[in-house]
């Protein structure tokens, strides 16, 4: 039987985590050697958790579908990681980071979890520096910071545009140390296809070896999912091609509640779609909004001329440009949070001001930054500030130092030089705030089954702030789960190894084999991608940046029909006993087709606008999101045989330490 209690500790907010740690059960070092933990996913959350649990003495088995744990998609995070270090002395504090995160999440996250996140954020930076993560530094040798959207301080630590890579390689190195010690057994190219519940507790998984096709049983005393988000339900996204919901969805079908599936982050600055062949979208880091100014032409005739190639953006004079974020949100300007920036871009493009052929692109312009930095450098070096050519050259050098790899990436994809002409950008699916429901200990509603990082729902509410995903992944993996899991495992010191011969393992394996047989023998006519693309279109058009009741209702019907068609007509070539990417993809798309329906159902139930969930029926006269106090709860869905029948549970959200206000960035 599932339990639905957030288990948040008593006491003043700032002391909750310390008090909780003081009170929970511990497992003594000798007994940790008797306990096995399975971790699925080796990104920032899973990798850091695996390393830390192994270091504490548990026997860890870690699984990833990639060929190496270093390839998890955390590697692609660009801009940075937040921490309330206040190294800049600009008024930052644990409370302010907590405040910004709750407000940024549009008052839909759990207060206690967010405060803990802010509290441990500073440890992450200390930890990573000790591990040799090469963060950006100033000339004095100390760490540098920059700003991200939705905040008024500089608290983001970074390593050029490759912060996720450096942090993940740090966690990967920590894992390697434990693999060498024999404390982590690493299973690469393995995909989890079911979680096994014995006597009401998660006791193992069924995994498929992606190279040989073998189905394997693995047992443990607890199972941790750090399997990331489900944005690939939209087909096109900034996620890696292999990112999927399967592990989380199988857990959901075994009793774990799925929370707030409709909270999806659509990131404002991505490279626009270029054609039907498109397989994925590429993000341009939010850090670019520190220096880039977003605009579209003020006049439709200029838009037309640009689309027809008669006019270049650089030829449009200042007075004919609409810097719409600076116009609408003077206080935060180009650094408004992602949901706000994305909707504003959509609003301009829907109104006919999009600047590319498809009408779905806006400019991100660095000309002003290049000039400003150029003049500054000329001044510093005692050179002529009025020499335009020199100023341009110096300015470009500064911009290149800050964002060089992003500019190069843009140029390779679009074939235009962003130092000379503004970038074209458009919003794209980037992150999912929703995920498996978990309590303060990060345990799902299935005892012994944990969800960490993007796979859970707890910290970002309805909208995540930039540079907070890396923070949450590492906080969960390094500093939260390793404590809280002990509280549960303390009861297991006398259990002994879990057998994989039980009827529960038998049944779960059969379940997995049945699905694989059904896919491989379906003999249909259409490829897996065919269905995935169609699902993506429904999701983007009806469950995307703005939603309404009518569209959502029809999305539910369409997704259900598509799912039926998929099972009748999908074609999976090859066999199940070899490397077969189409088969792996088919299983993932089958789960997306179920999740998609729950997603739409959740969005339809939430009759308000908040964060990334924007319902057209609920907006202010100025077009801003209109929240409703009535919906100040977490929607946690229980699986009862079919997504359409999912049972709705509510966790009321209470804010005792922050005043719930209208979220304004004006």
């Amino acid at each position: 039987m599932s339990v639905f209690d957030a288990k948040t500790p008593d006491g003043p907010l700032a002391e909750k985590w310390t008090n909780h740690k003081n009170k929970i059960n511990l497992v003594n070092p000798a007994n940790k050697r008797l306990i096995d933990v399975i971790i699925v996913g080796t990104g920032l959350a899973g990798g850091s958790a695996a390393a830390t649990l192994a270091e504490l003495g548990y026997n860890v088995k870690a699984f990833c579908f990639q060929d190496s744990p270093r390839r998890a998609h955390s590697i692609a995070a660009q801009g940075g990681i937040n921490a309330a270090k206040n190294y800049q002395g600009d008024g930052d504090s644990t409370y302010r980071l907590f405040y910004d995160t709750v407000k940024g999440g549009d008052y839909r996250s759990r207060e206690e979890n967010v405060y803990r996140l802010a509290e441990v954020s500073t440890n992450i930076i200390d930890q990573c520096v000790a591990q040799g993560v090469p963060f950006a530094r100033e000339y004095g040798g100390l760490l540098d910071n920059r700003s991200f959207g939705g905040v008024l301080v500089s608290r983001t630590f970074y390593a050029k545009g490759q912060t996720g890579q450096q942090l993940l390689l740090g966690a990967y190195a920590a894992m390697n140390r434990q693999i060498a010690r024999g404390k982590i057994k690493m299973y690469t190219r393995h995909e989890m296809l079911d979680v096994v519940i014995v006597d009401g507790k998660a006791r193992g998984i069924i995994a498929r070896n992606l190279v040989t096709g073998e189905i394997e049983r693995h047992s443990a005393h607890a199972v941790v999912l750090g399997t990331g988000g489900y944005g690939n339900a939209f087909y096109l996204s900034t996620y890696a091609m292999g990112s999927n919901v399967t592990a989380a969805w199988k857990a959901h079908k075994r009793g774990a509640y799925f929370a707030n599936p409709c909270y999806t982050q659509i990131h404002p600055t991505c490279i626009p779609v270029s054609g039907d062949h498109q397989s994925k979208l590429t993000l341009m880091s939010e850090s670019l909004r520190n220096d880039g100014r977003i605009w579209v032409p003020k006049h439709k005739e200029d838009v037309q001329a640009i689309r027809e190639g008669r006019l270049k953006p650089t030829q449009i004079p200042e007075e004919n440009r609409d810097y719409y974020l600076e116009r609408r949100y003077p206080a935060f300007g180009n650094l408004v949070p992602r949901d706000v920036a994305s909707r504003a871009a959509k609003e301009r493009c829907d109104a006919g001001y999009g600047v590319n052929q498809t009408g779905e692109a806006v400019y991100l312009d660095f000309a002003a930054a290049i000039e400003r930095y150029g003049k500054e450098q000329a001044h510093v070096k005692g050179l002529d500030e009025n020499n335009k050519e020199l100023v341009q050259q110096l300015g470009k050098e500064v911009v290149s130092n800050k964002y060089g790899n992003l500019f190069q990436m843009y140029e390779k994809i679009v074939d235009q030089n962003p130092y000379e002409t503004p970038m074209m950008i458009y919003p794209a699916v980037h992150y999912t705030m929703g995920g498996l429901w978990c309590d303060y200990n990060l345990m799902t509603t299935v005892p012994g089954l944990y969800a960490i990082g993007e796979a859970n729902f707890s910290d970002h509410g309805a909208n995540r702030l930039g540079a907070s995903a890396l923070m949450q992944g590492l906080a969960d993996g390094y500093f939260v789960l390793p404590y809280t899991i002990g509280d549960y495992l303390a009861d297991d010191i006398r259990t002994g190894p879990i057998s994989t011969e039980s009827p529960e393992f038998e049944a779960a394996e059969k379940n997995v084999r049945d699905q694989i047989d059904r896919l491989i023998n379906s003999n249909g006519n259409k490829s897996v991608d065919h269905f995935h693309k169609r699902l993506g279109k429904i999701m983007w058009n009806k469950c995307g940046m703005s939603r309404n009741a009518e569209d959502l209702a029809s999305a539910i019907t369409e997704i259900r029909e598509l799912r039926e068609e998929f099972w009748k007509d999908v074609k999976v070539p090859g066999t199940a006993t070899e490397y077969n990417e189409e088969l792996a993809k088919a299983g993932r798309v089958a789960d997306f087709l179920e999740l998609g329906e729950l997603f739409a159902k959740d969005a339809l139930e939430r009759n308000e606008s908040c964060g990334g969930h924007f319902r057209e029926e609920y907006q202010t006269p100025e077009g801003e999101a209109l929240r409703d106090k009535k919906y100040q709860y977490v929607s946690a869905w229980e699986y009862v045989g079919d997504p359409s029948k999912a049972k709705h549970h509510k966790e009321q959200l209470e804010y005792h330490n922050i005043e719930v206000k209208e979220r304004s960035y004006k």
Partner: protein
Amino acid sequence: MNLTLKIWRQKNAQDAGKIVDYSLTGVSPDMSFLEMLDVLNQQLIDKGEEPIAFDHDCREGICGTCSLYINGRAHGPDTKITACQLHMRSFKDGDTIYIEPWRAKAFPVIKDLIVDRTSFDRIQQAGGFISVNTSGNTQDANAIPIKKENADKAFDAATCIGCGACVASCKNSSAMLFVSAKVSQFALLPQGQVEATDRVLNMVKQMDEEGFGNCTNTGACEVECPKGISLENIARMNREYLKASLKA
């Protein structure tokens, strides 16, 4: 564009493998190289044939998964990018393109264009880390100031994505650029000094055991590295290795 593709097909590690010809029409210059392969695979699936297996994941040049040897060059004709960032505008209508897997004893083929690079992981496990516990109870991050120049160089070395292009490009199948990138990152930072001796000795020992060849300074690895990892790192590793050998 219309293209002739000559692609390595190999059913599994035991199979001998061979080049198979495919022709593909209507390729857009704006497609990425992998999207072009997606189109081909879609056609193969529609015809009831098995699609070509190739490794890929992030498709934005950072995960290091993609590993195609295109017209005799790792990641293809363009420089400082991975195969997933290569776009078809780098080719002409009527071109013939050869696509092969990485070729190295230490990277056995799994299927078609997919190779096993776990040897890289084992080298990292031999010493590519700093042995600090992940408890968070370490000193304040700003307690160790690091010269910006050294921090930047350490970062440049740390940007290695572990794709294996260096090995594939090297006539000796040497992994020196890959190993030296990690050794350099830590050699340039104060945090790395404590274990420096064991690190370089152990990582080099593992590299040799995995069957990678020696370095003869041809520099092909640096030319083909998608992240522009510099040969300087190999020189630095050689110094570190010599120092460590004298100490040991």
